[in-house]
């Protein structure tokens, strides 16, 4: 009797669980099926992948706010080729494994392209899968080189693009700026030897200087956490450069600037986006007076595009000012949707392999003005874009222009 009872209970459980499974499938399957059928008729589905919870959620939310704004505006203006754009959102919590799951889930939902992810590690995790599927993808904020390029296999992920500039790009930009805008003949560099961001930017700066014929007269470094730079700065002062490039974060800039003045350095200081809000950390704004640094975008940019973007963003989000991530998210969606419009025009069947290839080709051919500057892509799919140059004048950060 007892065993029979047990058997019954087991069977009942199995049946119930099987039912639950079926119900589970049943509830999701028609939705996605119906979705893709509907999509082929009058909507275009785009996936959004990024963190909306977890430690890096603030970046994910900022990027998504920009993407949402663009999609809303696009749909209000009639969408693409008469079709409305539908954004399918997946929260990957900043986790690489969840990002891959999320990507697969988005593909199951029938998206034709993905905007994502937000931070570097999950993006790199997803890109290998997306590369195999040849899914068009664009990230608004992952800056590492390996997002679009696999150095081990010397392979460029041809399907992957980004709207942010990569770290090394800043080194190149500031070297060009020194040569072309400031007419510098000599440069010196002081960088943080223990920080990959700093050393990476430094290398590209020096290489670009060599290419442009700017002589690097002093190259000095320090260990992370150092406070005394007098030795390095005395060497730099003796070399008397036209510009002093400091690819370091704002806290170190504050210490270096103060000691540079003591060492009698008169060179114009050049910085990178790690300098943002540097004026909050220097003891006297006069120490960095006249310095320039590059940034992803500036809210003081007076181009109509930026003014309109900021006004629309403020209108949608209770008067908030978009940060760099919001603007880059907006641009990522914009670049992708332009490419989808081109694919629609090509006449390829929605969602087919030719369609995806058409989107990728169109993205690679991007060459126009966006909120964060003029964007075109190089053969690594890294944007060749203008950077916003911020100058410190009269103790305040002011927008110099796009370069």
């Amino acid at each position, binding site marked *: 009797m007892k065993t029979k009872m047990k058997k019954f209970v087991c069977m009942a459980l199995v049946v119930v669980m099987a039912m639950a499974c079926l119900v589970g499938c049943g509830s999701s399957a028609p939705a996605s099926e119906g979705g893709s059928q509907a999509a082929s008729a009058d909507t275009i589905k785009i996936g959004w992948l990024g963190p909306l919870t977890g430690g890096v959620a603030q970046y994910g939310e900022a990027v998504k706010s920009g993407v949402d704004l663009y999609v809303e505006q696009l749909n209000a203006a009639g969408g693409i080729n008469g079709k409305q754009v539908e954004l399918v959102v997946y929260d990957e919590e900043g986790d690489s494994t969840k990002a891959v799951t999320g990507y697969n889930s988005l593909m199951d939902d029938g998206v034709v392209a993905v905007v994502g992810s937000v931070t570097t590690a999950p993006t790199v995790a997803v890109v290998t899968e997306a590369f195999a599927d040849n899914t068009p993808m664009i990230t608004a904020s992952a800056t590492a080189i390996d997002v679009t390029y696999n150095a081990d296999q010397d392979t460029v992920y041809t399907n992957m693009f980004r709207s942010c500039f990569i770290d090394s790009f800043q080194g190149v930009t500031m070297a060009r700026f020194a040569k072309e805008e400031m007419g510098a003949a000599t440069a010196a560099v002081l960088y943080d030897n223990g920080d990959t961001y700093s050393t990476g930017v430094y290398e590209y700066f020096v290489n670009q200087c060599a290419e442009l014929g700017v002589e690097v007269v002093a190259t000095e470094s*320090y260990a992370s956490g150092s406070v005394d730079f007098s*030795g390095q700065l*005395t060497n730099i002062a003796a070399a008397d450069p036209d510009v002093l490039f400091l690819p370091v974060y704002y806290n170190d800039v504050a210490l270096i600037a103060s000691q540079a003045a*003591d060492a009698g350095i008169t060179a114009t200081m050049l910085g990178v986006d790690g300098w943002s809000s540097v004026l909050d*950390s220097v003891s006297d704004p006069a120490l960095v007076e006249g310095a320039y640094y590059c940034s992803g975008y500036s809210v003081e940019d007076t181009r109509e595009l930026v003014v309109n973007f900021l006004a629309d963003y403020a209108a949608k989000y209770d008067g908030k000012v978009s940060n760099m991530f919001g603007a880059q998210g907006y641009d990522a969606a914009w670049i992708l949707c332009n490419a989808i419009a081109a694919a629609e025009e090509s006449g390829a069947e929605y969602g087919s392999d030719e369609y995806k290839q058409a989107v990728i080709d169109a993205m690679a051919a991007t060459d126009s003005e966006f909120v964060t500057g003029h964007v075109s892509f190089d053969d690594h799919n890294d944007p060749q874009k203008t950077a916003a140059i911020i100058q410190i004048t009269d103790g305040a950060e002011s927008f110099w222009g796009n370069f």
Partner: protein
Amino acid sequence: MIVLQQLINGLQLGSVYALIALGYSMVYGIILLLNFAHGDIIMVGGYIALLIISAGISPLVAVVASVAGCIVLACLIEKAAYTPLRSAPRISLLITAIGVSYFLENVAQLILGADPRVFPNTAVIPSVTYNVGGLNISLTTIVTLAVAVVSMAALTLLVQKTKMGKAMRAVSEDMGAAQMMGININRTITFTFAVGAALAGIGAILYCCRYPQVKPTTGYLLGLKAFVAAVLGGIGSIPGAMLGGLAIGVAEVVVTALGYSTWTDAVVFAILIVVLLVKPTGFMGASMNEKV
């Protein structure tokens, strides 16, 4: 010329180390305690000055308050943490000192946050640089060197010429005998801590004027380096601490100037190891007869 300029850099850094090393050396000389909380007293001194100047009060008041604050704090630490352990094994005292160090760092972090605060250094010493025969000498450098020299001279006078100084030397020589001669040991030890802390307070101001940032861990590495300076000079010896501090400062800048900037800390601590292995008494330390 550049060599001379680097030497000045080294002397400036070294004179701050020297002021702090004095506090280490004096306390060690009198109760054989390596007071690892000494570096953190500098951090507290820096914060006191920073908060007072930020509140818009005269920098002079800030300097006095900072030195006074350091003295009060050091005496409190001595009474609360070290006095009850005076007859305990030396190792207990050493561990307590490390505990006090962590305590101060974490309390500072709790109250003031971990982010570095900007020290308004130009309010204390204006940012002026003089060009003397091709050498760039800032007002901060001149003030640092001058204050360090005056402080050390005053300390030497205090120890050699006053009654309290005599008591300090006596307690340092032999605590038991000094007590029998009628010297108030508790008062003398507290006084020694106070003098060391006053020097640390002065060092804190000079340090923050040169490196205008204060954070809860400011005193950590600074204290360790000053400790190395004290050992190099001969722990327990006052002129030794001065020499050791200057030597460490110059050594750091020389290593940096030669292009090995990432090695500066390694060189400083390598000096510590070499000194302890080869000549544990340092430049000027008296040899100790199994007193430890």
